[in-house]
């Protein structure tokens, strides 16, 4: 597996270090020649200097045989173009872009980037999950199907409290996957009654997340 990392900031540095330790074939592209020299001292000859958005640099890096190109510079526009160039010019199978402005995640996916990583969104989700009063938590996005796994806490005021799942009309493209009640994990059937304090684990299409929230919470 050959991985090209573009951008030798903190993320690129530790990513390269970790991937090398895991036994991947890795090449790091960094723009600043001074940084490249110090990286070569540490990592060996797996670092080249150049502009990763430039076709000549990607060609020199052997992008044509790369399995993955990961763009982790500090600029979203650079990460986008690096991945698009890798994909359209070098037919790299998988491109991963770091997204600094969380609003760009959707745009990047629309423009053909396979995976986007937003530190801002990631930290936000971790915060949401650790706030106990939060009633509706987005646990995970399943990118390829545009699906999300969510956790909804049922309160006494919830419109679905003390009702069985069979009585509830769920929004389209939503299913209740599990009900967590204290230490118990219940595999739900139509007769399962939702009790205050239950955590409802549901899989929902992104567009239906808000409908599901209204149904379960308010």
């Amino acid at each position, binding site marked *: 597996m050959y991985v090209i990392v573009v951008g030798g900031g903190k993320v690129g540095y530790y990513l390269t270090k970790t991937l090398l330790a895991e036994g991947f074939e890795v090449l790091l592209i960094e723009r600043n020649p001074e940084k490249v020299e110090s990286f070569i001292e540490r990592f060996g000859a797996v670092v080249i200097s150049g502009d990763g*958005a*430039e*076709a000549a640099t990607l060609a020199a890096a052997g992008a044509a045989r790369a399995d993955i190109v990961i763009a982790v510079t500090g600029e*979203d526009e650079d990460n*986008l*173009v690096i991945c698009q160039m890798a994909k*359209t010019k070098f037919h790299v199978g998988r491109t991963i872009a770091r997204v600094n402005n969380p609003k760009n995640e959707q*745009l990047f996916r629309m423009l053909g980037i396979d995976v986007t990583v937003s530190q801002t969104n990631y930290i936000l989700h971790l915060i949401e999950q650790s706030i106990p009063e939060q009633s509706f938590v987005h646990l995970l996005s399943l990118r390829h199907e545009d699906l999300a796994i969510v956790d909804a806490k049922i309160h006494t005021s919830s419109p679905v409290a003390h009702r069985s799942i069979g009585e509830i009309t769920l929004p389209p493209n939503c299913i209740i996957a599990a009900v967590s009640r204290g230490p118990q994990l219940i595999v739900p059937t139509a007769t399962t009654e939702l009790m205050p304090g239950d955590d409802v684990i549901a899989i929902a299409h992104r567009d239906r997340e808000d409908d599901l929230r209204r149904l379960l919470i308010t």
Partner: protein
Amino acid sequence: MKVVIMGCGRVGSRIASVLDHNGHDVTVIDTDNRAFRRLPGDFRGGTVIGTGIDEDVLRSAGIEEASAFIAVTNGDNRNIMASQVARNIFEVPEVVCRIYDPVREDTYRRLGLTTVCPTTTISALVLDHVIHAEESGLTRRSEV
């Protein structure tokens, strides 16, 4: 028509001024407010400070009503990204993107962007003059 221009350098300010003189509704975006000094004193259009790769900045420049978007900052990648936002998110009918790197220009032209590459355009013009001079016999006698 409404036109949004990203980048108020020599090219951006000139396009803005010409379109404004011709009666179009122009808004110019630049990250540096000093760049707007390049606009003529009688410029009637709007100015917005910010980067055109941010949807909110584009919105405040009136991109939703714009018939054309022109990306002429110094950064190829910024121009490319902003142009794709204008085309794919805001569905602006006419998007023109300046890209200095000829390889990148070729790639994005194939992907459907309307691109202008100063590098190839200016090289072609210069070569045209030089080759034309040679063909007309305008060489120094000692070189013949």
